[in-house]
């Protein structure tokens, strides 16, 4: 059965679901805009016709013209299934027909995509160029290519498909074997550009720099054709990666079927704590609806565990249809995965719960409905997942189920953010020394450096100090004005292009008596993410860290089946190395620069996943680390602090401290000798207050709040001062929580790529209140720099989130849970945000 309007109505108004769809959007079918073939080569035209393609979409035609006629570099940013491949297939084959010997290099990030494209290109070229030997004309060159074929490919292949790792380790360091291929190179295709961000993207930029150096040696100057999913800054990212001007094609003129898009925000099940129904429950409820109505559905899950639990639950609900309801994740046998892919494609499998092991490039046809459980981290990924729905222009349905995370809840309240032009920017920092240095080594291996050589856009004097460093460390020898590689080591094999050149801890899983390496993590991050007792999430799986051997650099993990997560308790000491950018406002300053962060993990909290309740705290004895990186921070000026304190809206908390309170109060005042413990003055019993040092609401067991050690006698003035300090602490940590959760809306990153810090009396800023966000990559990777530049936008989004939250004084979906260490400063945070917004209108910049 297919999606119909009646079905949508039924879904929306079903009592189980109603009130929980804050958003529905219907887009009508479009026919697409086509262009006749005219200047395209006749042999290509006839091939296309034989494949049933009788015209090109406008955007395809535009892209091809800019490449072939205007000789531009181009980035194509149209949606899924918009025919992006033709935008490079046609120019490549056209040029070959014209010259008889031109070559092209195509880079893909995954094997599935590479092989998909190989088949498409082979079919295309077989039909267009019947006389050629097609086994070698187009070929894949990657780790799986048998050695017997490699020499054949090197000498004969004209269209080469490979991946960045292979370029790094095989093609570039052995480029003389590819001399004729490189000499005739006319095109370089970079697919899935948006994946080349952060550390990985920074490495790719350097690999392209090395490639261009080699191409220069062979006298080749190819054009670049890039494809990307929709992100905030595709043209900018493309220009950063290839360091040349790029022309962008964004308007998608391909036909679309009718689509329904929706957000499902699970209902609140605990009013007091503002806790919502969990993702698993919500997913299975929705899935059951579709299965009952025989709608083919795909559910995207974040973890393998989620896949298993969802499938188990649905098998329970539909015992007669268990073979139509399947899970899909890594860890299954290849044959099983093939079976499910085929089943989805031919319609025999009605429902699958999948992790992102079901990548793009794996052909499953299209399904009718897509459900995404929890925001996947970027709008680009969400759209790619949504793009999987719809078959041959039948009606498609996509639903995002929002979790309790602040960013998810932001989308639930401002859904158009997901569907309008995204603001999430991809950032790289190709000149981060930890990334640049290994590539300079590889480049020197590939061809000697000469003084005044450029490296990408870098002038010689911008990187020569690294070469001199390498000479000192006996990797290079300098003779006259040239730097030669003089070491036995093969540099390109000594680093990973997905991490920085620092020492890594190996993550080892003990399962069924054997040990298996599941990944690596750099030492600094490991201390706070992978400490003993931590619940660690990696690549779709949850693990418990049993033990870490810091000498052997190995962390022992076991699979984790509990229902809590952990949060490290860190003590941090920050010092500013250099302020590089600054913006000054009336009430506060924002600064960006390089920082030195000394931190030590002192313990961790165990937090129940669904209720966010703190189950317990453990202490740890861990080494201190020192991280040098970039960050941006907000400093509140004294006038701001005054205004926050003096705001008449704030009443003291009227709490019920229990029936024994009057007696406890009397005892404390008596113990303290009727003296204010802060200013020392004596008062009467009725005039004095008794203050909780750790706020009453922070305690789970309320009686502990009233223990003698936690209570102190204060006069009304001093009490007010103490409470106000608590308020400052509340709004500073509340704002910090919001900012760090909203940052991924503006910059594409994983949750561990940014660290946050807040302090009422920051020692590095003259004891002023500070909220700080920093990159966790040593040397920085461009994230906090971009957030600094777009600070105003960030504050706007934070304001929107907190002011539209339904909770009373704070919750996990905005400033943080109400009772946590005096957090719950929702009002205070809104106050601060309002102040900041007001000032943003009166800008005084200082760079």
């Amino acid at each position, binding site marked *: 059965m297919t999606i119909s309007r009646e079905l949508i109505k039924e879904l929306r108004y079903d009592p189980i679901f109603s009130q929980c769809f804050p958003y529905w959007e219907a887009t009508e079918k479009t026919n697409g805009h086509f262009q006749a073939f005219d200047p395209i080569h006749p042999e290509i035209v006839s091939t296309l016709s034989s494949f049933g393609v009788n015209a090109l979409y406008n955007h395809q035609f535009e892209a091809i013209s800019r490449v072939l006629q205007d000789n531009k570099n181009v980035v194509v940013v149209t949606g899924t299934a918009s025919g992006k491949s033709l935008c490079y297939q046609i120019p490549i084959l056209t040029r070959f027909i014209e010259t008889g010997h031109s070559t092209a290099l195509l880079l893909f990030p995954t094997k599935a995509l590479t092989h998909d494209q190989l088949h498409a290109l082979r079919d295309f070229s077989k039909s267009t160029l019947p006389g050629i030997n097609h086994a070698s004309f187009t070929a894949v060159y990657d780790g799986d290519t048998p050695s017997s074929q490699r020499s054949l490919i090197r000498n004969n292949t004209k269209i080469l498909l490979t991946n960045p790792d292979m370029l790094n380790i095989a093609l570039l*360091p*052995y*480029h*003389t*074997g590819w*001399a004729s291929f490189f000499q005739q190179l006319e095109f370089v295709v970079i697919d899935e550009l948006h994946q080349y961000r952060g550390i990985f993207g920074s490495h790719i930029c350097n690999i392209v720099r090395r490639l261009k150096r080699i191409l220069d040696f062979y006298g080749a100057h190819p054009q670049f054709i890039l494809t990307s999913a929709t992100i905030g800054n595709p043209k900018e990212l493309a220009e950063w990666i290839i360091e040349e001007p790029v022309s962008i094609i964004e308007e998608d003129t391909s036909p679309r079927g009718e689509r329904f898009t929706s957000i499902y925000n699970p209902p609140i099940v605990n009013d007091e704590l503002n806790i919502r129904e969990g993702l698993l429950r919500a997913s299975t409820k929705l899935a059951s609806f579709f299965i009952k109505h025989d709608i083919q559905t795909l559910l995207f899950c974040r973890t393998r565990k989620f896949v298993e639990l969802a499938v188990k639950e649905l098998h329970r609900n539909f015992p007669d249809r268990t073979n139509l309801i399947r899970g899909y994740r890594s860890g299954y046998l290849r044959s099983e995965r093939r079976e499910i892919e085929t089943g989805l494609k031919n319609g025999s499998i009605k429902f699958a719960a999948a992790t992102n092991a079901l990548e793009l490039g794996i052909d499953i046809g299209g399904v009718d409905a897509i459900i995404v459980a929890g925001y996947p981290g970027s709008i680009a990924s969400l759209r790619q997942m949504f793009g999987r729905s719809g078959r041959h222009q039948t009606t498609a349905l996509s639903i995002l189920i929002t979790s309790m995370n602040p960013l998810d809840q932001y989308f639930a309240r401002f859904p158009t953010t997901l569907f309008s032009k995204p603001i999430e920017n991809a950032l790289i920092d190709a000149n981060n*020394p*930890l990334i640049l*240095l290994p590539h300079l080594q590889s480049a*020197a*291996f*590939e*061809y*000697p450096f000469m003084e005044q050589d450029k490296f990408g856009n870098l002038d010689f004097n911008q990187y020569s*100090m*690294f070469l*001199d*460093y390498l000479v*000192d*460390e*006996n*990797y290079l*020898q300098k*003779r*006259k004005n*040239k730097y*030669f*590689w*003089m*070491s*036995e*080591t*093969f*540099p390109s094999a000594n680093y990973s292009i997905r991490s920085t*050149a*620092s*020492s890594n801890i190996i993550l080892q899983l003990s399962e069924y008596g054997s040990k298996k390496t599941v990944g690596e993590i*750099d*030492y*600094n991050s490991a201390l706070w993410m992978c400490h003993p007792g931590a619940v660690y999430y990696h690549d779709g799986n949850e693990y418990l860290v049993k033990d870490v051997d810091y000498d052997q650099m190995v962390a022992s993990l076991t699979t984790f089946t509990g229902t809590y997560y952990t949060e490290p308790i860190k003590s941090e000491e920050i010092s500013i190395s250099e302020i590089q950018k600054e913006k000054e406002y009336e009430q506060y300053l924002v600064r960006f620069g390089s920082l*030195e962060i000394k931190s030590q993990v002192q313990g961790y909290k165990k937090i129940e996943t669904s209720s966010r309740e703190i189950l317990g705290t453990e202490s740890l004895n861990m080494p201190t680390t*020192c991280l*040098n990186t970039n960050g941006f921070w907000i400093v509140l000026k004294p006038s701001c602090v005054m205004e926050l304190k003096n705001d008449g809206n704030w009443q003291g908390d009227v709490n019920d401290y229990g029936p024994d309170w009057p007696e406890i109060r009397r005892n404390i005042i008596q113990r303290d000798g009727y003296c204010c413990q802060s200013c020392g003055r004596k008062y009467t019993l009725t005039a004095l207050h008794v203050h909780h040092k750790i706020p009453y609401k922070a305690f789970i067991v309320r009686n502990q709040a009233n223990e003698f050690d936690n209570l102190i006698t204060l006069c009304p003035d001093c009490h007010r001062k103490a409470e106000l300090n608590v308020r400052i602490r509340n709004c500073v940590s509340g704002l910090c929580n919001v900012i760090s959760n909203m940052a991924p809306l503006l910059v594409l990153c994983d949750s561990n790529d940014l660290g946050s810090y807040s302090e009422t009396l920051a020692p590095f800023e003259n004891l002023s209140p500070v909220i700080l966000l920093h990159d966790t990559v*040593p*040397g920085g990777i461009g994230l906090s720099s971009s957030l600094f530049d777009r600070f105003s936008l960030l504050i706007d989004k934070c304001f929107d989130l907190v002011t539209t939250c339904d909770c009373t004084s704070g919750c996990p979906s905005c400033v943080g849970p109400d009772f946590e260490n005096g957090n719950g400063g929702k009002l205070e945070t809104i106050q601060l945000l309002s102040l900041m917004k007001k000032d943003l209108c009166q800008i005084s910049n200082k760079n």
Partner: protein
Amino acid sequence: MPDIKQELTKLGFVPAKNIAAVKTNRTTIEDAVQGIRIINEFGEVIMIEMTYPYETIFGSSKLSFPSNFGIVRKIIKHESITNNPQKYIYIDTETTGLSGGTGTLPFLIGYGFFTPGGFTVQQLLSDSPINEITQLLEFNKTLQNFETTMTFNGKSFDLPLIKTRFVINKIDPPLDKLNHIDLLHISRNIWKMRLADRSLRELESRILGFSRTDDDIPGWMIPQVYFDFLKTGDPSELKGVVYHNRIDVLCMAVLHQKVISMIENINKKDENDILDSYSIGVIFQNRYQYSDALCVFNRCINASGINDYLLVDLHMRVAQINKRQNNWDSAIFHWVEASELGSIDSCVELAKYYEHNLKSLQDALFWALKAKALLIRAKKKVVRYTERNDEIAKRIERLQRRK
């Protein structure tokens, strides 16, 4: 200029170990290695030359006046192999690393060739990477006089590396125009039964009986010696590298001659180790040199000190050749011999022969059953037991049915 080292350490970068440098430079490199400096408009190179007269002793072998080079055709696949020894050039390089690729430099190219007066080894030592072109141009000049290159593992290492250097320096690579013979492949085929390690050093020591003097430097130290020289300018250690390379080249020539002599004397009793003869026989067989192969195998069969496994193998090979040539009586004889030693395959061959050639089902079945019996008896020691069992069972079943 910021202190990069400090910055990198702050970021957590782990630098490489430093080497202790500082030595004083007293001798010139030419003197240290006993060579001469050749200068042209592109740069300089040091050339060292030494000629070994014929009859020079090399371990338990000697360097002879070269002859009968053509006989090697019997064991390698090469149509245009030349008979003229003076057209052969033996090449070995010393490099800055083993990874190949464009960052590996063959700073020393050694090559040897036969002259009327003896075997001359010339070596081109590049004393600075900036001078590489001169080394390559000199080498290129020399190569014009030769038709065949001989190396030890050069096919996968030295020759591609030299080619890379030519390409990087934008000179037309010359080596594609010459034939190439790799002694490693030949050595493997001849000595894989007898020696676990067929490296040039091992062959030099075990087959040719040669020991190097203290002037030698082990191969793994060579790159570092060169790096130290580049850094400090002190050439004294380079002598050992030059010696090492020169002996490698000479050794190849002597080894080549040894192989030729082994082939020449293949049928002389006690000339060669029996396993070596056997290996050469196998190569003959693989190269379709059947009459030569038969001579060798028959001599091996009659030799003493052969174990049963080898004997079975020999009988099977002889039978196989005879079968190809339709010498059935001979084939049968050897299969029967093999079967008496417990060979299952020979019984199968006999069964096939009797069934298809002589149409004698009775005999065929006899041999098939014998094969089965042998298989069961040898169960644990047999490879692909199930497969062969099924095969024989099918045969038996078919024969019984036809009867």
